[in-house]
């Protein structure tokens, strides 16, 4: 379904980099383009508007200039009033004979030539004076066609009642001058002021050079065209010479005749300004394409667009890079996460930056490292615990010990010391039961002490006076608990090294309650002191290092002590454990410090707590 696709196209389901890029586009490129486009169009519009207001005024000025010139021309016919001779000829209505008529015609034509053609008005190319039955004419150049007066009287052309000058445009006339010279015909009704009658009509043919000179003064860029047309749209002057005499078919459609408008009729929109002469009715039009008007703006627009595109590209690339910079580490992070998910912790998210991404990467790396470390730690603890248990197991069923004991028992049997044998067997049995007996790792101190006593008793049976011991249990051994098999390895060690000396060994075991500086409370302290050879200081340091080290050391030396220490630390934490003091040649003291464990239950809790504390195993995926 379409909705389904739309749903899938929803923003939130996009990838982060896509989102960033879209956001960038929405926040920068799109608003700036819209803003740019709007301001460009508004600016363009205001240029057109300004031009549209300015140009008609200019045209109006031009129109006024032309009108003024026209007015000058329009006043020229009045010159005739100053000649009473001409006026009286014009007043005449009938003639006795032809020669008289021709004589008058000669006089008037002569006058017209003198006054108008040879006057100081080079723009006048012809003058015609028409009365109902006569026509006087004088022209600067040859002409063809019907003289104006004839036609206009024939057609009953409406003359201006008020005697104002009126313009006739060539298209209304059948009169052509040499070279097709464009002209205007100024028509003026002449009045006999005294008799209040019409004298006739004077026509002045005026060439259009003066319009050209007026329009030429206007600032007129190449792209613009200007023309003057009459009220029917006939073009009487055009900057393009070939169009003179044509018509502007659209004049009727123009929405205004004094003002300007934008025309969309041609190939391209044009700004057309028009101004109509009130008196003479012609229309001056100026047309320029919008494009030419806004040419400079368009240039800036193009420059702006290019700059904008360049910037948009640059910033887009930057935003892509930025987006990738953000999203790539995240993508890598997610793929690394997958690896981690599958159990591979040897991953490294490289990030050199110091920003949030770098921070994230570093945090991730350190988190992975931590996890790895914890896993490893847990792993080693597990291993060590197994190993310790294995050792304890080994301790409890040490075949050497059993062999030696049995041999001792055998010897006693040979010597028939029955009582001794019975005692030895009893002790042996008790020891075995302790070793095999209940699985719990914590036992009552009493039992542990009993066990080490049994062990020492057995050793004493074997070595006689060479082994001597003393055990002082100064705490409530039946109530307090301790890990199993922590004393026997120490005592074993003391006997092993002590027997090497000639005079034998004396071992003192004391169990006390003491204040512990490390734990900050009362602890149970086991002290196992011997008068053996002691340990050389350098060896002692090595031994302590071995005991405290985390690494698994295989080999005889110090393994037992290390095992004890490790088990205690594992169960109770670093503030507890085993410590060795020794004077070379003067004996050794081993101090085992454990917390006060009141009951088996609390011991159990402690046990479990410590177990839970380390209970991170690799199969747990960290939910």
């Amino acid at each position, binding site marked *: 379904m379409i909705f389904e696709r*739309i749903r899938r196209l*929803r*923003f939130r389901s996009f990838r982060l980099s896509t989102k960033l890029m879209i956001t960038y586009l929405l926040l920068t490129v799109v608003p700036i383009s*819209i803003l740019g*486009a*709007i301001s460009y*169009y508004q600016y363009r519009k205001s240029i*057109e*508007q300004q*031009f*549209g*207001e300015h140009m*008609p*005024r200019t045209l*109006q000025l031009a129109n006024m200039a032309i009108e003024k010139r026209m007015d000058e021309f329009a*006043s020229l016919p*009045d010159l005739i*009033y100053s000649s009473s001779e001409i006026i*009286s000829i014009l*007043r*005449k209505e009938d003639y006795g004979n032809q020669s008289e008529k021709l004589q008058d015609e000669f006089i008037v034509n002569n006058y017209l030539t003198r006054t108008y053609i040879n006057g100081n008005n080079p723009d006048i190319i012809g003058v015609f004076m028409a009365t109902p039955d006569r026509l006087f004419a004088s022209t600067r150049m040859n002409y063809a066609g019907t003289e104006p007066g004839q036609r206009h009287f024939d057609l009953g052309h409406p003359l201006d*009642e*008020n*005697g*104002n000058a009126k313009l006739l445009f060539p298209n209304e006339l059948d009169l052509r001058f040499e070279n097709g010279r464009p002209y205007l015909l100024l028509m003026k009704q002449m*009045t006999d*002021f*005294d*008799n*209040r*009658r019409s004298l006739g009509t004077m026509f002045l043919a005026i060439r259009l050079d003066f319009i050209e000179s007026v329009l030429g003064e206007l600032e007129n860029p190449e792209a613009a065209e200007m023309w003057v047309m009459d009220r029917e749209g006939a073009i009487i002057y055009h900057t393009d010479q070939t169009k003179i005499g044509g018509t502007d078919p659209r004049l009727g*459609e*123009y*929405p*205004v*005749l*004094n*003002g*300007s*408008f*934008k*025309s*969309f*009729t041609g190939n391209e*929109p044009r*700004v057309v*300004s028009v*101004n109509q002469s009130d008196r003479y009715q012609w229309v001056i039009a100026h047309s320029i394409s919008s494009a030419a008007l806004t040419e400079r703006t368009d240039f800036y627009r193009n420059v702006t667009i290019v700059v904008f595109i360049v910037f948009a590209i640059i910033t887009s690339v930057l935003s892509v890079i930025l987006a990738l910079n953000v999203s790539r580490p995240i993508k890598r992070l997610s793929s690394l996460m997958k690896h981690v998910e599958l159990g591979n912790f040897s991953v490294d998210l490289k990030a050199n930056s110091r920003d949030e991404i770098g921070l994230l990467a570093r945090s991730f790396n350190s988190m992975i490292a931590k996890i790895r470390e914890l896993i490893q730690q847990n792993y080693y603890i597990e291993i060590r615990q197994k190993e310790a248990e294995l050792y304890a197991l080994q301790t409890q069923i040490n075949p050497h010990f059993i062999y030696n004991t049995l041999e001792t028992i055998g010897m006693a049997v040979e010597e028939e010391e029955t009582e001794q044998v019975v005692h030895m067997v009893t002790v042996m049995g008790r020891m075995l039961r302790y070793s095999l007996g209940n699985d719990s790792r914590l036992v009552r101190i009493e039992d542990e002490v009993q066990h080490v006593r049994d062990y020492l008793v057995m050793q004493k049976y074997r070595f006689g006076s060479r082994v001597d011991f003393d055990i002082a249990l100064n705490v409530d051994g039946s109530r307090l608990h301790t890990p199993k098999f922590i004393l026997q390895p120490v005592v074993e060690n003391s006997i092993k090294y002590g027997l090497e000396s000639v005079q034998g060994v004396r071992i003192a075991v004391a169990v006390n309650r003491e204040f512990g500086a490390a734990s900050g409370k009362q602890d149970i302290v086991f002290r196992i002191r011997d008068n053996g050879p002691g340990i050389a200081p350098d060896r002692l340091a090595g031994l302590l290092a071995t005991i405290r080290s985390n690494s698994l050391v295989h080999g005889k030396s110090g393994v037992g002590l290390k095992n004890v220490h490790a088990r205690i630390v594992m169960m109770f934490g670093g503030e507890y454990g085993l410590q060795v003091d020794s004077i070379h040649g003067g004996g050794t003291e081993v101090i085992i410090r454990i917390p006060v464990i009141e009951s088996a239950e609390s011991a159990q809790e402690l046990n479990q707590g410590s177990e839970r504390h380390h209970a991170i195993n690799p199969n747990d995926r960290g939910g």
Partner: protein
Amino acid sequence: MARVWLAAVFVVLLTLASACSPTGDYQILYDQDEERSAKERHPDRQYTIAVVPKREGLDYFEAAKDGAFEAAKELGVNVLFRGPETADADAQIRVIEELIEQDIDLLAVSSNDPKKLLPVLKRASDNNIAVITWDSDTDEEGRAFFINMVDPETLGRHLMDTLAWSTGERGKFAIMTGSLSAANLNEWMHWIKVQQQEYYPNMELVEIAANNDSYEEAYASAVRLLESHPDLAGIIGNSSVGPPSAAKAVKEAGKQGEVKVVGLSTPNLMRDALHDGTVQVITLWSPKRLGYLTVALGKNLLDGTLPYDGQFVNKVGNVRVKGDMVIMGEPLDFTKDNVDQYDF
């Protein structure tokens, strides 16, 4: 939500697009006519202009009336042309009083007396009626301006000259004037005398006869002049009534060519007398033109335009202005050669 946003963006874009694209072929940027039409154009009210001649029934004033009505038709104003039966100031005052009652806008008077008319003209002014004078002036406080047909000095001197040409610069002559109170006639008379004293020592003014612009009175006084001055060389008719009456009297007395007649009158009245040689030269202007000019300048005044020197008045030509006097043009001389060109 996303669809709502999309729709909103779409609407905005559409609005922008429609703002940028034209609605038709043309889009008006600027309309000057709108601004122009915003400036209020006071509607053309039809004015009523009352033109008062010195008296009715004279050819001269009939011609002026023709001109006034021609102007009324062409300029679109309403013209009342009304004068007294006789060229008498009191009668004229009555006519003016009647006109004041008639909701007129402008009063143009050819005054029979420069002083007597002042109160009634003042009343007209108080009634919001503009007052001008034509043909014959009042004192200047009575009117806005005076439309004179010719420069009085030029005319007066010229009338003297025409008589001097006719009589060979010698002999006795008399002046026939209209009313002794008419300002224009008196001024012309003044210049006639000045011209005679300056240039024509051999000529002598023997009498000034007033006729109140009445043909009967004028004829009677002409007859009397011929009788009481048998050696009279010429008569100057100072008003349009004078020359025809003088010509008639001269003709009847059989003194054609002996007593020269010149002066101011219309060609129509004098045509025959000119042709048969009783009258040598007649001087005048076109009263039609004067009537037309009076109405035209009256309308201009109501429109708020005062005449100015060199102004071209349509169908009248250029006028001159001296102070508050408008001068229509130069005097025309009619002789037997050109009198047929004129029909007033």
